[in-house]
């Protein structure tokens, strides 16, 4: 059905339509999310802080701990230190993941987004790809920068770590995977809760507070609960040797983490699809 068929009084100029792609697809939704993502300052600040904290703290801690690590008193492996900064830097990934969704609800932008792309699954998928892709790249670069900087000091004490050592290269890319996963986790919670402060509190509490307190739970049941908490399950892949000996194997843990993200994302999608904007 065309408009002109109804225009009894006046006809629209047939050349009125702006040129371009009349049948945009998922690529257009992705491009739109990409422009949105990089045109607010919170993205730059979050990713910059991820790098500064992640790489910077790793270098700082390696520099200050190298002598002790090389001494006889050392009871930790230098391999636990080459991605140290990520312990704090992961917060920025959670912040970014939350904001990508909740800032749209807070400002009313979500209505513009859904008016432009009514297929809600496409909106969610495009956001997820832009967010996780960016975090994976920034997280991996951060891990490498931290490793090269930190290893300089470890090398000076003769305890240098090689990229070929077991788990080191895995931890570099694992850092990217872990922050990407955290971002997605936070974004999914954002779709469910829609309020920045509430969503942020829930994710930070779950990953940092509840995750650590779960280790205090008694018995096998408690031990498994702790191991399966998202932050605990997912973080193992991001470090060659974890400080925490009770974690799952890196890849097994990451598989659990990915499963949790997938379930949460499906729930978020089902909710988002039905809810009024």
């Amino acid at each position, binding site marked *: *059905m065309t408009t002109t068929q109804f225009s009894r009084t*006046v006809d629209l100029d047939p050349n009125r339509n702006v040129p371009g792609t009349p049948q945009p697809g998922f690529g*257009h939704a992705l491009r739109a999310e990409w422009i949105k993502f990089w045109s607010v300052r*919170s993205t730059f600040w979050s990713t910059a802080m991820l790098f500064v904290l992640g790489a910077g703290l790793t270098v700082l801690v390696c520099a200050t701990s190298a002598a002790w690590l090389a001494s006889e008193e050392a009871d930790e492996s230098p391999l636990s230190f080459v991605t140290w900064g990520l312990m704090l830097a992961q917060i920025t990934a959670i912040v970014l993941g939350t904001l990508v969704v909740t800032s749209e609800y807070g400002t009313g932008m979500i209505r*513009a987004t859904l*008016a432009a792309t009514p297929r809600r699954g496409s909106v969610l998928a495009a956001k997820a790809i832009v967010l996780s892709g960016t975090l994976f790249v920034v997280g991996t670069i951060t891990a490498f920068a931290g490793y090269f900087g930190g290893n300089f000091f470890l090398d000076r004490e003769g305890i240098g770590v090689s990229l070929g050592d077991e788990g080191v290269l895995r931890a570099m890319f694992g850092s990217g995977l872990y922050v990407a996963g955290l971002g997605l986790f936070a974004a999914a919670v954002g779709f469910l809760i829609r309020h920045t402060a509430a969503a942020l509190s829930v994710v930070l509490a779950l990953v940092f507070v509840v995750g650590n307190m779960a280790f205090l739970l008694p018995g096998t049941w408690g031990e498994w609960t702790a191991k399966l908490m998202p932050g605990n399950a997912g973080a193992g892949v991001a470090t060659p040797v974890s400080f925490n000996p009770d974690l799952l194997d890196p890849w097994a843990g990451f598989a659990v983490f990915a499963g949790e993200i997938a379930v949460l994302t499906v729930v978020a999608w089902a909710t988002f699809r039905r809810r009024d904007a």
Partner: protein
Amino acid sequence: MITAQRLTKIYGDKPAVDGISFTVEPGRVTGFLGPNGAGKSTTMRMILGLDRPTSGSVTVNGRRYADYPAPLREVGALLEARALHPGRSARDHLRWLAASNGVPRVRVDEVLGLVGLESVADKRVGKFSLGMGQRLGIAVALLGDPPVVVLDEPVNGLDPEGIRWVRTLARQLAGEGRTVFVSSHLMSEMALTAEHLVVVGRGRILADCSMSEFIADHAASYVRVASPQRGEVADLLRRQGLDVGVHEEELRVQGLDAAAIGELVGKSGLLLHELTLVRSSLEDAFMTLTADSVEYHATTAAGIPA
């Protein structure tokens, strides 16, 4: 053309939009008028597929909004609440919208020029005045050069020059053959812009007619009669079965036009000092109409079933 059929939206157990059916035709400006809380914005959100109707349907040129692959090319909308991120520039806001619907980038500069925002295009919209925000909203609506334009309270926050600009723009768009649907809670604004009216109150349609029909049906008119022989004139007219009210120095007569009243009074040899047709304003008509709907609901709220 926008077609709503028994469109209903219920929040909790309160109907915001209560089974309304209407058609917005192309080629003219249709005003969507009602007091705050009448269901205007809810209806507009349902047109844009943002809210799901509880029942009924609304289509744009025969299709649901959400079924269009590039909806911004079919329907341009200015939403009431500013759907903007305050940290993004006007140009970036338009850029992502253009990208999402495959609209070429040159169109972004084109609409920025059209609404007069070129000079502030790279400023963050959080620093915009209400009026600049409305202009950007209109730029968004025009981005895809759509045959259907939906404007929710477009003159909010605009200065007189801006108001006149929106009015001219709405008429111009309709003149090009587009469907133009403009909501407002200001009758006076609608009177100058719209040719057709859909009036809602408490989620129901109170009137769906042309502006002139609306005036004829709802704006009460009377003939003002002034005479040194006021008492006699009043008696004469009452004997003819006319409704005569006495207000200070004048009579207000309903039921006959000025010429006929003049002849009647003249034949009886009485003197007349004034004979004027007085039409109450559209604002009054609107108030009368919506006051009825408020009263009606006040009654139902008191326990009498609707």
